[in-house]
């Protein structure tokens, strides 16, 4: 059941892809050999599995990848995948040989073979996957690796654009296919082919069948260049010809029809299938055939011919009949063989003559008769001339077009279209031969053409031989392969069919005849047709259209992005605020605003405070353009808020707010010096109105929330802290015990924030060049008295006094309002006062403390205090305290939380001074810099 040889089939080229680049340093041939050996090994491995597959077995391999989501590394080798694997590896080997001679000295060959093997691995993965999701994995990998191959000559714009076009179209198809496969998996309950292929009834009866089908077909059609997605293929011809020979004959584009074949049992047979697939195939068939005739570029002709033949195959599968499928499989084989050889021949011509333009290429028969012969055989096969392989499958195709039953009275349309396509095929095949090898003399070719190196023709010879062999003795050559492949495609009994060359005189033969004669006639009339074509069809360059479209798309995207992100902070903030208002409004929409708790009376003093707060908040806002004035108004707000904390019994908060207030004022004064003193009036009244609306909305939202909460009862964990503070935390001041003990972790984070902010600010100030105003806002020169004497004299003795107050606040913080943070700020303010009063130089001479280290030491002390609890087997930051007794002193308390608080104290001093002193020093630095210049 689990055949372990399947995985190496893919892994060999996958990892083998690394070899050519590695061997490249030993020369181009070494690189080619490395690639060839890898592929040959894989081919041998595949051939070793030939007999069980031909014996009707389906070899499976399974390994879990992500089984819960249906993604498995399960592989399958049955007839169909055997056929494709043979094509991929066989033709791959020939292409490697061919490319060795095709690529020039300056082409990085190791990279080429690397990409090629990567692509080969992906392609093998597609055909060998048993799991549909796995198939998709490889499917997308073929798109990616072919992107690299098409863009191989990256310096050429057409290569780059062709690659991107191909990737975009096939990538889009891949995404659609993904969706389709997911749906298919949902419907059939599994992504394993063996299950899916057995679930045709469920699938086709499912309401999602049409969607699924369309999504999957989009994948197949984009890959196989079916109308209307065909236009990427001609532009992929910018790739080196070996790539075209490989990707556009046997592999990449065949992935699409492979998918049709693979899922044939599960999806085919419905009316919808017929209409979608067959009509797409028919249109593509005709369209490709028509355009092929009018291409003057050799590879262009072949590209449209490929499109046409892919349409043919698609049409065959679209018929939904077993025989149609057999014919489809057969044509896959034949097309791969003759088209690969034609591409190679075209490559030789291009390589040796320097052009692919059929206007210039004439009469090459004289220069390269051998190549011409090979090309003629292959072209005959393409035209469906008897005795060549193309004829056999084309006959089957003509026969099948006569037997479909969906179109009723319109059934004649199919054979008519098929014959018409045949006419064109014959015409462009003749053209390929006659225009190039005969038809007069070459017209200023870049090079004088001659036969290519010997080994460059070997691949063509092999393929052409196959054309002949299959064409003449199909039963001895292709029959078993076709039978195996077709039977596993259909997934049941093979219908009766015959590979004989001669079936007697019948309608298909007639159709062939018409095609031959008509084709010859058409070629004869080609000059009139070219003129007509040129009159009716404006040249349409899909690539340019795509590029233009893409460009417009990018412009559109850029426009949209710029409209959304106009780089205006005001808008971004406005959106945030607007969102706040919106969600609050939505949430509170049908909720009663007030709760049951009665409100307390307002006393007169509080009312006055409220009035002061409201007035100063409003004046701050109204006069915000006069920055200093607004700042003073703002200070009033701060003062009143502090007093409010006193009023509502929160002395710790009041102390903290007051000291932070002082530091903030110093901070803002330091900064304002370097900024404009006034804000220009620049907001339009519309903007003001919008902002007022937002501000009002935000204010109302928060007010509603506050009112809502304040009028509702609650139960709080606060009671626990009130009870546990003394016995558990050893302190009377519950707020402080929470800060240093219950929630000491928050405090540690908080001082860390302070420290980081200080470091960050230091970083911002480094190298900062600032303009120092020579006069104040009104143009007055600054006063000359730098250090007012009275201020200096008072500040100095104030320092020890303030320190004593700080020590007092800190030591009693655990039991009474105070604590390390406030003490730290008091100390810092007293110190910064020295800077203000006596100057930087004076202060530095007296206090040479590294504030960074002080800050770090503080945080470190707090952290280490926390870590200390590990020594006692307790979690981080567990505090301990005890009551001690000393003679003379009496009883006193010691707590580890005090050590923690000491750390906070130091960190606060350090970081506050780090910020303020360094901001202050800015002027000194800038003055020095100004003097230097």
């Amino acid at each position, binding site marked *: 059941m689990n055949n372990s040889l399947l995985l190496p089939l893919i892994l060999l080229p996958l990892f083998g892809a690394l070899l050519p680049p590695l061997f490249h340093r030993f020369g181009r041939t070494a690189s080619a050999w490395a690639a060839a050996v890898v592929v040959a090994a894989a081919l041998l491995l595949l051939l070793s599995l030939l007999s069980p597959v031909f014996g009707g077995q389906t070899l499976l391999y399974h390994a879990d990848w992500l089984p819960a989501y249906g993604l498995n590394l399960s592989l399958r080798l049955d007839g169909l995948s055997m056929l494709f694997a043979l094509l991929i590896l066989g033709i791959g080997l020939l292409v490697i040989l061919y490319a060795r001679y095709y690529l020039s000295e300056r082409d990085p060959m190791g990279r080429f073979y690397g990409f090629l093997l990567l692509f080969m691995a992906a392609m093998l993965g597609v055909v060998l996957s048993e799991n549909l999701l796995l198939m998709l994995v490889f499917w997308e990998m073929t798109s990616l690796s072919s992107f690299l191959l098409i863009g191989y000559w990256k310096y050429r714009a057409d290569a780059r654009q062709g690659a991107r076009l191909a990737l975009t179209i096939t990538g889009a198809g891949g995404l659609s296919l993904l969706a389709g496969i997911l749906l298919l998996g949902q419907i059939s309950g599994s992504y394993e082919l063996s299950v899916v292929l057995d679930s045709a009834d469920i699938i086709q009866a499912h309401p999602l069948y049409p969607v699924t089908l369309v999504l999957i077909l989009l994948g197949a059609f984009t890959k196989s260049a079916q109308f209307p997605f065909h236009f990427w293929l001609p532009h992929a011809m910018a790739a080196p010809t070996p790539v075209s020979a490989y990707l556009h004959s046997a592999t990449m584009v065949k992935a699409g029809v492979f998918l049709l074949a693979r899922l044939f049992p599960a999806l085919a047979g419905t009316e919808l299938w017929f209409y979608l697939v067959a009509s797409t195939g028919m249109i593509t068939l005709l369209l490709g055939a028509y355009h092929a005739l009018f291409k003057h570029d050799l590879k262009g002709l072949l590209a449209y011919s490929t499109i046409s033949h892919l349409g043919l195959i698609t049409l065959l599968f679209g018929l939904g009949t077993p025989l149609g499928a057999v014919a489809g499989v057969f044509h896959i084989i034949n097309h791969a063989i003759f088209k690969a050889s034609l591409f190679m021949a075209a490559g030789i011509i291009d390589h040796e003559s320097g052009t692919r333009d059929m206007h210039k290429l004439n009469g090459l028969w004289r220069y390269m008769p051998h190549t011409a012969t090979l090309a003629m055989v292959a072209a005959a096969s393409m035209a469906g001339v008897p005795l060549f392989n193309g004829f056999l499958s084309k006959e089957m195709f003509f026969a099948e077009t006569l037997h479909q039953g969906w179109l009723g009275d319109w059934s004649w349309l199919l054979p008519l279209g098929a014959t018409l396509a045949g006419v064109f095929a014959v015409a462009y095949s003749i053209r390929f031969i006659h225009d190039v090898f005969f038809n007069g003399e070459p017209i200023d070719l870049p090079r004088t053409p001659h036969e290519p190196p010997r080994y460059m023709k070997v691949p063509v010879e092999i393929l052409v031989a196959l054309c002949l062999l299959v064409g003449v003795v199909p039963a001895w050559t292709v029959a078993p392969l076709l039978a195996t492949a077709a039977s596993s495609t259909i997934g049941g009994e093979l219908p009766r069919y015959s590979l004989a060359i001669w079936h007697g005189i019948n309608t298909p033969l007639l159709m062939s005849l018409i095609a031959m004669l008509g084709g010859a006639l058409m070629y004869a009339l080609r000059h009139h047709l070219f003129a007509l074509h040129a009159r009716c069809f404006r040249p349409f360059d899909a690539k340019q259209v795509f590029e233009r479209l893409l460009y417009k798309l990018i412009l559109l995207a850029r426009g949209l992005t710029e409209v959304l992100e106009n780089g205006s902070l005001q808008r971004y903030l406005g959106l945030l605020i607007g969102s706040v208002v919106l969600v609050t409004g939505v949430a509170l929409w049908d909720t009663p605003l007030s709760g049951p708790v009665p409100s307390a009376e307002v006393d007169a003093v509080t009312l006055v405070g409220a009035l002061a707060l409201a007035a100063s908040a409003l004046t701050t806002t109204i006069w915000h353009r006069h920055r200093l004035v607004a700042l003073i108004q703002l200070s009033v707000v701060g003062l009143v808020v502090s007093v409010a904390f006193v009023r509502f019994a929160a002395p710790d908060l009041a102390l903290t707010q007051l000291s932070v207030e002082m530091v903030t004022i110093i901070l803002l004064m330091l900064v304002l010096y370097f900024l404009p003193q006034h804000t220009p009036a620049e907001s339009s009244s519309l903007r003001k109105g919008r902002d007022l609306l937002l501000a009002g909305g935000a204010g109302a939202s928060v007010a509603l929330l506050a009112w809502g909460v304040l009028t509702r009862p609650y139960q709080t964990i606060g009671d626990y802290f009130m009870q546990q503070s003394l016995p558990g935390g050893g302190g009377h001041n519950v707020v402080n015990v929470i800060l240093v003990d219950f929630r000491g972790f928050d405090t540690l984070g908080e001082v860390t924030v302070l420290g980081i902010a200080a470091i960050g600010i230091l970083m911002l100030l480094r190298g900062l060049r600032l303009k120092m105003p020579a006069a104040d806002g009104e143009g007055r020169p600054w006063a000359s008295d730098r250090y007012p004497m009275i201020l200096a004299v008072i500040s100095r003795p104030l*320092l020890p006094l303030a320190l004593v107050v700080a020590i007092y606040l800190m030591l009693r913080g655990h039991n009474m309002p105070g604590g390390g943070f406030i003490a730290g700020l008091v100390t810092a303010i007293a110190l910064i006062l020295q800077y203000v009063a006596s100057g930087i130089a004076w202060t530095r001479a*007296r206090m040479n403390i590294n504030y960074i280290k002080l800050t770090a030491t503080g945080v470190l002390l707090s952290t280490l205090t926390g870590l200390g609890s590990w020594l006692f087997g307790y979690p981080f930051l567990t505090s301990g305290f005890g009551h001690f007794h000393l003679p*003379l*002193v009496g009883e006193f308390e010691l707590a580890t939380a005090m050590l923690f608080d000491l750390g906070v104290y130091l960190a606060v001093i350090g970081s506050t001074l780090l910020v303020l002193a360094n901001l202050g020093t800015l002027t000194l630095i800038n003055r020095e810099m100004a003097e230097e210049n």
Partner: protein
Amino acid sequence: MKHQRWLPHPHLSILLLIIWLLLVNSVAPGQIVLGVVIAILVPIYTNDFWTDPPARLRLLPLLRYAGVVLGDIVVANVQVAILILGPAKRLRPAFIHYPLELESEFAITLLASTISLTPGTVSADVDADGRGLLIHALDVDDDEALLRHIRERYERPLKEIFEC
């Protein structure tokens, strides 16, 4: 710059001890011990910041001076209150230059503070050379009387306290 001494500023230390005891609002032995420690340590650590303290300081005159100033503040407060409550038209404000006899910055500062603390006068500026004070007075009729008052009542005692 650093000249560590055990008690760089004994007066300051005493002041700090008093402040400590006032702060803790207690004279428990433990607090006194702690206060003494603080009163010794803090001046040592802040010594560098107070490089030019008064060379000498006479405690008793200082206390007497404090008493005088406090008394003056109370009296002046009442006077100025009456002035403020009355019509502003009646007031006779003036900037008066006061030539200083004091030389130590500390003493000058103390004088300036005293002037500012006593209602009715504010020391608005110190001359660049430190030889005079600019005083703004709310209501003066006799400049010389004011200058004399300051000289006699405040500057002379301060001289006595801080200078020879």
